[in-house]
């Protein structure tokens, strides 16, 4: 993160941002910075506040308190608007227009015209792999193609900061990989990216920095390795699946420093060999071991460690 919060070169600075919708607290004093030319992940379950945060950044939500500055300019100011590109979670396209016509429309909304607009449309079609479908209406495209066009419409003006709000929702694995490639290409060109998702693997694969949101707050912030180290040090994650009855397995897990849920006992161990001792203990306790998993902790483990529940619950 950065210390020079209001410096013009800092793509995004969020300070104590709060927003409430009726009785629902959507953002509870969120603060974060995003460095230039990085991919910043906002990770959290549905309802954590990711989309409200994104909509506050693009000026579509007026916060109750706190500030958002983009390259030193207040969010929703004309200067801030031109520097960002927003790809909303919904397919915000004209279904009866073709790919080219959609890109033309959103390019015009961003102030492009003439030759620069034509060049931008050509680049977008190429970047999204839709050059051969430029004359097809949106409603005739596959789900993955629509997602790619949705991305292209958000970056047609080549903004310095791109906000991608769950860009892979509802697409097949092949299309998802294609979208990853598009995001990587943007990064390689120096674009700063904010990427919201509730898929751990996407955040791990694409993001340099990650903020984990839960219940409207940032509960952890850093690189993937920093987050894992903060939560687990250099320890390993051991999961032992048991078929025995719940009270016995839970009691056994607790007595060995772990926790058991749905028949899976989880432990944090310093060395891989420690799992042998756990298995011996289970046998002595008369428990039936079905499966054993040993792994380095990941973001999923971090989220579980911090919140006590799975990310997708």
């Amino acid at each position: 993160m950065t210390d020079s919060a209001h410096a013009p070169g800092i793509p995004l600075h969020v300070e104590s941002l709060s927003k409430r919708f009726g009785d629902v607290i959507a953002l509870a004093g969120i603060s974060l910075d995003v460095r230039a030319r990085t991919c910043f992940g906002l990770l959290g379950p549905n309802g954590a506040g990711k989309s409200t945060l994104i909509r506050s950044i693009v000026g579509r939500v007026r916060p109750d308190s706190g500030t958002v500055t983009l390259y030193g300019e207040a969010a929703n100011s004309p200067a801030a608007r031109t520097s960002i590109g927003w790809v909303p979670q919904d397919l915000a396209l004209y279904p009866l227009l073709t790919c080219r016509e959609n890109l033309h429309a959103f390019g015009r909304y961003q102030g492009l015209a003439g030759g620069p607009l034509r060049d931008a449309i050509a680049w977008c079609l190429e970047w999204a792999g839709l050059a051969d479908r430029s004359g097809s209406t949106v409603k005739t495209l596959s789900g993955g193609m629509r997602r790619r066009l949705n991305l292209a419409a958000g970056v047609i003006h080549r903004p310095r900061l791109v906000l991608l709000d769950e860009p892979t929702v509802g697409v097949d694995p092949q299309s998802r990989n294609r979208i990853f490639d598009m995001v990587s290409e943007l990064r390689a060109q120096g674009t700063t990216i904010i990427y919201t998702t509730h898929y751990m693997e996407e955040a791990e694969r694409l993001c340099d920095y990650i903020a984990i949101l839960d219940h409207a707050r940032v509960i952890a912030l850093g690189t993937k390795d920093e987050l894992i180290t903060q939560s687990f040090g250099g320890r390993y994650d051991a999961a032992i699946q048991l078929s025995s009855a719940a009270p016995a397995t839970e009691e056994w897990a607790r007595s060995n420093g772990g926790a058991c849920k749905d028949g899976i006992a989880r432990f944090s161990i310093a060395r891989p060999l420690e799992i042998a001792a756990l298995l011996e203990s289970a046998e002595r306790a008369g428990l039936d071991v079905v499966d054993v998993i040993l792994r380095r902790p990941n973001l999923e483990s971090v989220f579980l460690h911090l919140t006590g529940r799975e990310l997708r619950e």
Partner: protein
Amino acid sequence: MIPTIVRNGFLALRRDRGAFILTFVLPVAFFSIFALVFGGMDTSGTPRVSVIVVDQDHSQVSARLVRGLEEEPSLKVMTQPAPQDSNPHPAPFTAVSAESAVRQGDAPAAILIPEGFGEHPIAFGPGSRPTFVILHDSSDPIAAQVASGLLQKVVMTSLPDILAFSGAKYLGRVSGGLTSEQRKLIADDLTRLRNYVQRRDRQGGQAAAHGMNGIVAVKLRDVVGASKRSPMIAFYAAGIGVMFLLFTASGAAGSLIEEHESGALDRMLSARVSMTTLLAGKMLYCWLLAFFQLVLMFLWGWAVFHLELFSHIPGFVVMTAATAFAVASFGMVLASLSRSRPQQAAISTLLILVMSAVGGSMFPRFLMPELMKKIGLFTFNAWAIDGYTKVFWRDEPVTSLVPQVSVLVGSGIVLFVVARLLARRWETA
């Protein structure tokens, strides 16, 4: 199983306000409008017909006839123009000013009591008979017939002594023992009467227009539509056109709601597009769409129904531009007001059908009671139809459209401002 299906249907209907309104509110609203128009709630029965009466005879008999006409409950008699601030005591109508008033649509018909009526009130008998002239505007096909029929009735009921006297006078001329000559005179009169009846039967209603239609001679003269090749087509083109224009504008403006639901609206507003720019763009689209729709409608009227479009281009363009502007604003308000597309569809269907019924798109306003006519003035339909009628029916100059254009454009501006204020809810959450 079947009860569950029925229950599900009613549950869904109860929660779909739009469908609920269309199912229960719209039919009741329509029933009420038709009941009001056709007298279901008006105990006085048939609405009164406005008619100008010009006394050219200035006799005691003609004065009694005017009084009789004024007392006739089905007629609303005007003997002089309505007082104005500039002219608080206007002079009584003359034949010329009455014709001008009918041309301008101030009244659908004018009865001219002929000079000499007091002397020879009855239409038949020896000698020349003075003929009543009813000037009328054939865009209201009922008024002239009602005025003509009631004139005959009022002559009978208000002048029975005069008629008896006239009858005796004529009989005195032909009586005296009924000589062979007298019998011949009576036979000749009967022959003439039989010939008239036969001629009337052959010519349909045309005989009436030649003055042989009752106790007094009456001649109908169409002072507005006589030269028209296709009377009433412009009226129907405007009436139906405006109704569908309202539907079109409502549907087109509804794309705002779709864009809001899809997120495209948010995306536009996060770019360089302001809400005012966005609404202005939508408004222009709706206006152009409505304009071209009316152009198409009138071109079709010209090509198929001989509507005299090309001789009225300036008035047509002005009225079409103003009407399209008003309905486009109406569509924008509906879109800004509604929370969802189904809700917008329900509200617009309800409003448009009611406005069209009250405003004269479904049946002419001159058929309506006075109260309904006044309520109709709160609709675009009424003002648009009045304007098109001025252009195509009365051949009035473009300058005469100032009231209609002012109302349509003025209310369009007000509605656009209202739409802009309502659209603030989309700007930021």
